[in-house]
């Protein structure tokens, strides 16, 4: 090759692409993308198309018409949101101050952390059984309340909204806590100290420094807990009131699929379910994309 620089066009577009973020590192996306395309996209598109082929005839949108035309079905969306949003919010919001307090070093930290994470192993069934046992009319809680004469009749905490809510908190909180704690550990404590020298109190440091740097992680944590809560199913049946106040949308999909064996309708309901989640997720993600998401100093 000649030593005279040649302004060939090829490297220029390489530069252009590189500037826009297209370079060899994109190959790292390949395994995951191929995987999802092969094992998810095809089956999913199949399910999607199935939802447009109603079992009992009718137009392409018949399943969706059926769902939205029937208040009993339509209401499941609101019911589910009413359970999932508060539960996910509570889990994330409760995890933040607790994780925050667990930073730094102190005696018993490991024990405390482990105790807080362990409920993640409980699983829905044990949680449900336990709630039914413990909160049931003759469970320990009611026994204690009755024997202390705090209440005269057993209080009802299961087979209604609260049963499901508690079960979501028990399974969701450790999950959120684990993530928040880990995200928090990536934030450089020096920044908070810098803020302290500028006169910021503990609360201000938390609000102005830690929280904004933690926010992207919180958004992700919220998303994941929300998605888990939104698809709540076994506990809605076991400790909820599946015909009424906790008739969540996944239950409607389940009934369509496994009681009425109408997979097409079930697919349609599940698509609605996914779409609703997507809306919430999109809102959170748009919010997240406007946050600062770079290095937080803790790892470098």
């Amino acid at each position, binding site marked *: 090759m000649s030593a005279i620089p040649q302004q060939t066009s090829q490297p220029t577009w390489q530069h252009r692409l590189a500037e826009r973020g297209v370079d060899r590192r994109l190959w790292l996306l390949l395994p995951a993308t191929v995987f999802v395309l092969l094992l998810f996209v095809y*089956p999913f598109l199949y399910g999607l198309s199935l939802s447009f082929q109603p079992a009992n005839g009718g137009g392409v949108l018949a399943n969706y018409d059926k769902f939205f035309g029937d208040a009993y079905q339509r209401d499941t969306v609101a019911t589910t949101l009413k359970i999932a949003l508060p539960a996910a919010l509570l889990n994330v919001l409760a995890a933040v101050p607790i994780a925050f307090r667990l930073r730094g070093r102190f005696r018993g930290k490991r024990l405390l952390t482990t105790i807080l994470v362990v409920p993640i192993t409980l699983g829905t069934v044990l949680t449900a059984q336990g709630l039914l046992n413990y909160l049931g009319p003759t469970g320990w809680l009611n026994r204690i309340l009755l024997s202390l004469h705090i209440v005269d009749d057993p209080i009802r905490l299961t087979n209604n909204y609260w049963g499901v809510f508690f079960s979501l908190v028990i399974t969701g909180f450790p999950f959120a806590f684990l993530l928040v704690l880990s995200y928090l550990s990536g934030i450089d404590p020096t920044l908070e100290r810098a803020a302290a020298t500028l006169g910021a109190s503990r609360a201000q440091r938390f609000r102005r420094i830690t929280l904004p740097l933690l926010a992207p992680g919180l958004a992700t944590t919220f998303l994941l807990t929300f998605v888990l809560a939104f698809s709540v199913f076994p506990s809605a049946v076991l400790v909820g009131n599946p015909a009424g106040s906790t008739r969540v949308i996944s239950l409607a999909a389940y009934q369509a699929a496994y009681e009425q064996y109408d997979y097409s309708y079930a697919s349609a309901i599940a698509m609605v379910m996914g779409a609703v989640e997507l809306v919430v997720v999109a809102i959170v993600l748009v919010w997240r994309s406007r946050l600062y998401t770079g290095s937080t100093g803790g790892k470098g």
Partner: protein
Amino acid sequence: MSQKVRTIRATPLGWVIWAVVVFFFVNLAGVVLSVLVSSFGTKWFDTWFPSGFTTQWYGDAWREFTLFHVIVVTLLVSALVVVLSVLVGAPAAYVLARKNFPGKRLVYLTFLLPILMPPITYGIPLATVLYKFGFAGHLSGVVLANLVPSVPFVILTMTPFIEQVDPRIEDAARMLGAGTRSVFLKILAPLLVPGLLASAILVLVRTVGMFELTFLTAGPDSQTLVVALYYSMSAAGIRAQQSVDAMAVIYTAMMLVLLVVALRFVNPTQLVARVKEEPSE
């Protein structure tokens, strides 16, 4: 760092928070203990404790579901799923955290969907695909099916962790001749240990608890514990409450063992390790 450690600081807000935590855990202990007690109880009617204790329920469950085999399969499946999903998911999370490229949103959506969509929408066709290629009915099918929601899950949880790492650290490693693989193994992996551990634990929990996809793709030799648990809980027929409790306890115990192993395997303090510690006081 100094050997001195501080005890938890006690601001008024702090006390409130700890009180709430303690309250939560007292009740949680009640929930768990009530199941545990019941699973060992003979008859438990309107009393504080069962009238007698027995291990019969465990023995029954053990025999009925050939639990030894089931647990081995469960461990194998979950270990494979965790490892594979991290291997496949972490590089993708890396790209999504670090780069802006055309079509990123579309890619992101594709990774989000498997988490958002309930298995009802894709479970049966997925199982068909896996049966067609001869995976389903074996362990491999169960693993592949469980990877579908797990890989995106890893991607989503890992992204913020990677964002936190200063890209200049990676630059420095590249300048020292580290290729992408080395950067991942030698630099990112150790820095991301808390994140990897967190998402591995979460994937583990999800995989062990994933009933639907597992049931659809499992063969007689590749059933996992959750299938047995759901069967004992919801299948037709009469079943003593205690035997369901016993199954649930077995399930939790296994998960607990896995969690402990995971925490042992990776240095447990790393769960909350940070590279820059707050100064001890």
